[in-house]
Structures are given as structure tokens and as C-alpha cells.
């Protein structure tokens, strides 16, 4: 069911344009970052139409963007980026952030080398699996009272660090120090609180994971030195989000925004893109609630990292100093943020939506931790569980993407197609033969998440590096994976 067949043109080696003339109602062009080979896959479903649909939204600036891991989502495509001028009727759309608000990844280094971990890998994977609750609707042992929950939503990762889940230094290396300012707990319904209860420190399900990795290639020695990493060193990556609380916030505000379409006379081709002006009452309320959910997600990953550090301490009988599990960075990839950008030599205030896309600040940006000022913001790109993941940094060139880049491999096969491709096979055994230990709580998760269900992350990273919107630092290979 390809759509917009043939209605895109090549801009340069890595960029493709969907002219605004291809669908009546588009306010700007669509621009997709991809290689020629990837474009064939991308054009085979409704992803490009979703890029065009985003271009309908009021106040959109320059173009509707898609990163090379673009794939068919709901409303906006996964891998979509859109910036809206808040002083020019620009909107905010819950469906363009997604249900898993604040979903993201964090990466920690360790002092361990591959040889230190290999003899204990099975133990380590077991302990991580047992100590970090995962699976459908998983709840954990971290109990937060209703009153404290409101504090958690405002203070984010700092609140859980204050309760002993981590160290102050972790906050320095978390996007927005683990809490967006201006979160309003009153904008979060009782039902959302209810759905998020006791889910702090839980991984969730689907593509969320914890991965023990080893660095197997360095591309940028200088940046690697700043991160304190080298070839052969073990890293830990965590991918999770805002759990039930975020899903419920998106759900409720999506319904509310449908009513806004008539109220503000907004025309969208898909109701999942329902939106309201950022400066309207509804827009402000959603933004306040969305920030709460994002803060919850940062707190959640902070708790998971804390539990994972303890698991390492248990298995290696070593203390925090010996293990050196310092956070390299934590960054969200489902979020909307109010940011200042220079557009045509004028500073404008934009509401930048990134849905399956990562913020990537350039060297010298004021929001960077001092230590990263010279190299730019770390960008963490997980691959599938059988192939590599990457660490990159932001660049000045990414001003053309509102300082945004890709977020992962991007799916290639639907879950059903992946399950049928894996029928009669043991994915765990196949991965084990490649030296990768995998544990999962979901019955079908391993087949759904099989490596072949994903695009090769190498190609995705090749495009953003080639186009210059971020720069490769190193590559990691999975050793042990815990899936939700």
C-alpha cells in the first residue's frame, strides 16, 4: 500500500524531499534523511504519508522532518521531527510525542573489560533479570506515596536520587538534569497517577531493554577520552519510558485535543495528530502534564540504573568506586520541548516535537554539561539485540534539523511478520551461538524483537554521520540482554 508513490525527489546524497504540492493542505515540504537503498523500504508503507500529514499542522517551521530510522507509526511517523513557532499559532500535538512520553536511553561506562565479565556473564544476566521488574504492566518494590508522587513528577530524577537511588553526579549527565521545569502535577489526572502507581524502577515490555555491551570500535579517540571509554570496555545501556502514567496522559489529552480541532479551526488529515496552540489553555495543560510524564521517565531510568549498579556490585563483589559505573548520558527520544532556534537569522521560540528522534546539541551549547562543552551532546543509538549500538555526539550542522538526529535502528518487519519468520526457531539459542545471552519475560518478545525485524542500525548511523547531523564516537556489541 505505498502512498505518495514517486512524489519525492532527491535533494542530495542523504536527503529526500516530499514537495508540499504532493498533498493539498501541506504547509511546508517534507524532508527525509535516508540512503537510496533505505528509501525503498521507507516508501513501502504509510510512513511517508505521515511525514506529509505532519506538514498540515499550524505554525510548522521550515519542513516536516524524518530521520533515517523513520517507520510507520500512528499520527506522526516514528523518527519524525517537527518544530512549531509558538508566536505564530504553533501547536503541540500529544500524538506527535507518543504514548510513551519521555521514553529514552541511558548509557553508563564501567571499569570492567570484556574478559572480566565473560566468566560471570550468565550470573550477571540472571541477577539483572531477577532484580529489575519487567514485563506487561510490571510493578516494583519502589513504593511512592500519593503526596510524594507529585514531588517525583516535578523533581524527576533528582527526587529519586534524594531517596538514595543514585548519586548527584548522575543528574549532571541527564538531559535537563532529569527534570523539565514547569511540570504541573495538577494537569495529571487521578487515573494517570493510578496507572503509574508502583511502576518506578520497572522496565516495561516490548522493545524496552537492559543491555550489557562491550565497546568494539572507536571512531573518535578524543571524544572517547572525555567519556572515559576505550575499546574492550564494558558498558550498560537502558531503554525505558514513563510506563502507565505517560500512556494515560497521552490518551486523555489526545481525546481532549480532538475537541480542540473544531475550537481552534485546525484541519488535520489524521485525528491522531489532534493538537492545540501551545499558548492555548489546552496546549499549556498538556505541556505541563507531558513534562510530569517525562520527569517520571527520567526518574524511572534512574531507578533502573541504580538497581543495575547493585546487580553488578553483587555479581562482581565490588564497590561503586571499583566498578566505575558513571553515567555517560541519558536522553529522551519521545518528547516536545520549547527551544530557541535561529531561523533566517532571527531567534524564534519553537515547540520542537521529537517522536523517535533524539536531541543532539552541538559543541559549545549552553545546555551541555561543562565536561561535554567541547565535544557536543552524547547521542545514544541502540541497535537490535543481535547487532551493534552506537554512541555519537551532536554537531553544529544539525541546526538544519533543530539539533535532532535518529534514535535507533527502526523496525523493518511488523511484529506478526517477525513472529512468523521466527516460527520453529529459538532466537535465544541463535543469539547464544553468537555469544549473546538473552532473557525475556514476554512469551513472544524475543521473536518480535528478533534482529531481522530491524533495519541495520549501521545504515541508520551511516546516514546521520554522513549527512553530518551527528558524529560517530564508538560502537558497542551486545553481550547480555534483558528484554521486557
Amino acid at each position, binding site marked *: 500500500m505505498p502512498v505518495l508513490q514517486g512524489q519525492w525527489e532527491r535533494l542530495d546524497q542523504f536527503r529526500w524531499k516530499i514537495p508540499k504540492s504532493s498533498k493539498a493542505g501541506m504547509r511546508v515540504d517534507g524532508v527525509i534523511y535516508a540512503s537510496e537503498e533505505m528509501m525503498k523500504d521507507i516508501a513501502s*508503507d*504509510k*510512513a511517508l504519508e505521515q511525514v506529509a500529514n505532519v506538514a498540515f499542522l499550524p505554525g510548522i517551521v521550515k519542513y516536516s522532518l524524518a530521520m533515517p530510522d523513520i*517507520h*510507520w*507509526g*500512528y*499520527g506522526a511517523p*516514528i523518527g519524525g521531527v517537527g518544530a512549531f513557532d509558538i508566536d505564530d499559532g504553533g501547536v503541540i500535538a500529544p*500524538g506527535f510525542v*507518543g*504514548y*510513551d512520553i519521555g521514553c529514552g536511553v541511558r548509557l553508563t561506562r564501567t571499569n570492567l573489560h570484556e574478559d572480566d565479565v565473560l566468566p560471570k556473564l550468565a550470573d550477571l544476566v540472571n541477577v539483572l533479570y531477577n532484580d529489575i521488574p519487567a*514485563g*506487561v*504492566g510490571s510493578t516494583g518494590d519502589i513504593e511512592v506515596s500519593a503526596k510524594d508522587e507529585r514531588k517525583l513528577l516535578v523533581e524527576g530524577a533528582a527526587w529519586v536520587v534524594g531517596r538514595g537511588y543514585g548519586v548527584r553526579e548522575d543528574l549532571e549527565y541527564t538531559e535537563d538534569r532529569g527534570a523539565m521545569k514547569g511540570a504541573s502535577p495538577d494537569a495529571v489526572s487521578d*487515573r494517570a497517577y*493510578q*496507572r503509574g*502507581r508502583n511502576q518506578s524502577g520497572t522496565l*516495561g*515490555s*516490548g522493545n524496552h531493554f537492559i543491555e550489557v555491551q562491550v565497546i568494539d570500535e572507536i571512531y573518535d579517540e578524543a571524544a572517547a577520552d572525555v567519556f572515559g571509554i576505550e575499546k574492550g570496555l564494558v558498558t550498560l545501556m537502558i531503554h525505558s519510558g514513563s510506563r*502507565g502514567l505517560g*500512556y*494515560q496522559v*497521552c*490518551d486523555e489529552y*489526545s*481525546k481532549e485535543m*480532538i*475537541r480542540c480541532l473544531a475550537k481552534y479551526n485546525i484541519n488535520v488529515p*489524521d*485525528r*491522531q495528530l*489532534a493538537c492545540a496552540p501551545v499558548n492555548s489553555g489546552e496546549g499549556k495543560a498538556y505541556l505541563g502534564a507531558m513534562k510530569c510524564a517525562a520527569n517520571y521517565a527520567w526518574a524511572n531510568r534512574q531507578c533502573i540504573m541504580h538497581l543495575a549498579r547493585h546487580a553488578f556490585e553483587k555479581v562482581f563483589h565490588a564497590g561503586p568506586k571499583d566498578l566505575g559505573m558513571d553515567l555517560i548520558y541519558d536522553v529522551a527520544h519521545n518528547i516536545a520541548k520549547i527551544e530557541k532556534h535561529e531561523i533566517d537569522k532571527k531567534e524564534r521560540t519553537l515547540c520542537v516535537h521529537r517522536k523517535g528522534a533524539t536531541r543532539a546539541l552541538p559543541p559549545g551549547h549552553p545546555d551541555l554539561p561543562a565536561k561535554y562543552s567541547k565535544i557536543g551532546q552524547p547521542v545514544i543509538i541502540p541497535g537490535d539485540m543481535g547487532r551493534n549500538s552506537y554512541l555519537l555526539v551532536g554537531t553544529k550542522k544539525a541546526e538544519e534539523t533543530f539539533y535532532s538526529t535518529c534514535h535507533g535502528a527502526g*523496525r*523493518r*518487519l*511488523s*511484529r*506478526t*511478520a517477525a513472529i512468523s519468520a521466527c516460527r520453529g526457531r529459538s532466537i535465544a539459542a541463535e543469539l547464544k551461538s553468537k555469544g549473546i545471552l538473552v532473557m525475556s519475560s*514476554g*512469551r*513472544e518478545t524475543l521473536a518480535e524483537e528478533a534482529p531481522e525485524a530491524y533495519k541495520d542500525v549501521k545504515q541508520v548511523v551511516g546516514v546521520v554521520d554522513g549527512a553530518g547531523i551527528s558524529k560517530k564516537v564508538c560502537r558497542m556489541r551486545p553481550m547480555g540482554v534483558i528484554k*521486557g
Partner: protein
Amino acid sequence: MKRYEQFPHTADIGVRVYGKDPKELFENAAFAMFDIIADLENLSGDTVEDFELEAPDREALLVAWLDELLYNFYTKQLIFYKFQIEELTGTRLKARATGRPVGANRNRLKTEIKAATYSGLKIKASDGACEVEIIFDV
């Protein structure tokens, strides 16, 4: 008649649901969702929940119905497997769902559905047959 089938969707789960009338369509949509969430085979139980919902139109009502069931699944830890739409207009429904506590059935759980989305949602109705495609965020 087939109650539903999955269609390929790259990132999420898409289902095409069938029903002889809108009531049955709503019942089968709920069944499809829980059939994805959990293994319903031979599941029995008699925990009953009643629902009364309103929405601006029938599509929005379908999403509201599914999301209400999801909310009850997560917060009350109930796996629903039987659904009865008692009243249905274009904007309002009354329904009853029967289920069983997750409890010892945790091993039946398969997939975490975050929400039913509005994306491309359109109920098609003709004589004696209704159909709708729903995308679930997973």
C-alpha cells in the same frame, strides 16, 4: 465469522475487526485487544465490570471503550475475555465485561498494549457487516 485478524503494521499492532453489527464490532474489538495482551484460551472467571461511556462520535467511542478496558486491566489487574455491549448509540455505550484477576495467570500475559490509537480509524458499515482497522501502540 472471523472475529478479527492482524494486519502487518511496522511499529505497532494493527487489527482488522469484523462484526455483524456495531455492537458485535465493539465486542470483537475488545476481544481482539485482550487476545493480543494475553493467552485467553480456556480462561474462565466471573469478575464483572460494568461500563457507561460517552464520546463525540462512534470512532471516538470505540477508542474510549478500548482505553477504558485497558485502564481497568492495568489498575484492577483483570484480564477480560467476554464482552457484552448492552446499549450502543453513535455517542454512548453501556457494556459489561467479564474477566479474571491476573494473579496466578501472569504467565498468560503476552504483550503490553499502551493504547488504542485514532490513527486512520474509520468504521465501515454495510448491510449485515461492519469492519474497522485499529492500530494499537505497543
